[in-house]
């Protein structure tokens, strides 16, 4: 009995220790599992909110685009067609010279209307990105601007440009178009600088003008034609997880910087 008691003590101690160890492991695993479930639920909630925000942004962008089309048609094409209708209504075949002038004038107006419609269609189409990529699209945009004769445009590409996904290129191009539209309409600028740089897995698009600039506090306070266009650009940047920054002061022009990570672009 005396010989057996130390063995009994050892065996019971071992059993107790093993039970403690198993209890410890099960407790840690159970608590950890609960924590991970809560963590995953939080991630799902954040993901759902993010998707809701993205969807809302996409709807708003679509709405803005439709309004832009409506404005362009009303301001340009609509006006030309109204004038053509007026000319045709006042056509007097008795006075051949006047009639000739009116027909010629109407024909010119129709040509301009067709050109405007064609330009509108091209600006909305993403075919140019599909065929030539973002760089080509920017080059064409620059060439259009230079043809107007109103702007001196400087365009440069730094670094070894790697292609983003088509969707991201389209969105970046839309941001550029919006920025250029704002410059044409509101800035009274004479020089535009567009820089595309590809450094350390980031694509940075930089647009600067030497126009009249504006007070950036209106972006927070007001809703007007300035803020609407910039909000559009911000929403588009959010869609591709890009950083959007704007710097401007009255009389000192405006600088817009859009930075998108290359890795995220590929993953998308």
């Amino acid at each position: 009995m005396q010989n057996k008691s130390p063995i009994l003590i050892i065996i019971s101690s071992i059993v107790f220790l093993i039970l403690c160890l198993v209890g410890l492991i099960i407790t840690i695993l159970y608590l950890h599992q609960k924590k991970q479930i809560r963590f995953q639920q939080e991630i799902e909630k954040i993901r759902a909110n993010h998707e809701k925000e993205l969807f809302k942004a996409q709807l708003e962008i679509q709405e803005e685009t439709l309004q832009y089309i409506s404005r362009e048609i009303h301001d340009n094409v609509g006006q030309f067609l109204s004038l053509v209708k007026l000319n045709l209504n006042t056509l007097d075949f008795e006075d051949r010279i006047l009639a000739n002038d009116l027909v010629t004038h109407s024909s010119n107006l129709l040509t301009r209307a067709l050109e405007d419609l064609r330009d509108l269609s091209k600006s909305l189409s993403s075919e140019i990105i599909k065929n030539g990529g973002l760089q080509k699209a920017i080059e064409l945009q620059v060439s259009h601007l230079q043809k107007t004769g109103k702007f001196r445009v400087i365009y440069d590409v730094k670094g070894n440009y790697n292609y983003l996904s088509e969707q991201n290129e389209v969105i970046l191009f839309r941001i550029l178009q919006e920025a250029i539209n704002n410059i044409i309409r509101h800035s009274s600028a004479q020089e535009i600088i567009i820089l595309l740089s590809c450094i350390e897995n980031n694509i940075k698009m930089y647009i600067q003008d030497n126009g009249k600039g504006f007070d950036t506090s209106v972006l927070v306070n007001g809703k007007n034609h300035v803020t609407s266009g910039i909000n559009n650009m911000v929403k588009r940047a959010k869609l591709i997880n890009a950083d959007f920054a704007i710097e401007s002061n009255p009389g000192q022009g405006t600088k817009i910087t859009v930075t998108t990570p290359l890795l995220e672009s590929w993953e998308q």
Partner: protein
Amino acid sequence: MIFLLKKGFFNASGDYLFHLLSQSFKSAITVDAYYLSKYFFCDWIMIASTFAAFVFSIKFGHQLNGLKLITIYVVGSLVMDLISIYCEIISPNYRIESFFMSLFFVFEITIFFYYISNNIKTAGIRQKLKIFFLTFFVVILALSLGHILFAKSLKAWLMAMQFLYVIVPCLIYFIELFRFYQPNLKEHPSFWVVTGILFYYSSSLPLFILGDYVFANFHEYLNILNALNYVLYAILFSLFIRAYLCKTKVQY
């Protein structure tokens, strides 16, 4: 010296090694059965589990980069076990055993501390722990000098060191476990290793504390305490084996 000159160096070494092995063999076959079952065979269980951990580390260790430190520890333990067997059974020498045990203590704490701190995700805490560990060597040096010069008991110091340099990092690891997202915890080798280390040191601390009291009042039960210590080591190595069986390839 004359022997060396007469026989030449290699011949002399070979002869000496043969003499050592034959003496060991003679001692081993004539060893008293008491020494074999002194700790109720729990020391042999520990040696068997150490050897099993060694085999698993050879087979699976190359797949898991982070367990290289544990492999080094297992090899060190195996060597220490062989030295203990030699010093206790074959050629009893308490001084040599004690010397190697002291070295092993430093080696063990260093490996465990370094392993646990490498598995802590927060860079700031990891850096601070590594700097804090430098104090370990200062304390060891001071204790060694104190023990040599003043013959003071080291027990309280050793207990404090085990707590500070092993148990506290283990607790930090577990706190972090609940802070960061880590799916499928059962397949993380570090979880099993740190659980084993925390379990061993938490369980052996009471044995350590009770050691002096038992030695003074219940001397016949001292072997039970030692046997339990060996069993705890065996459980530690079993958890190391579980760590080697994890499917996750990346450790950190």
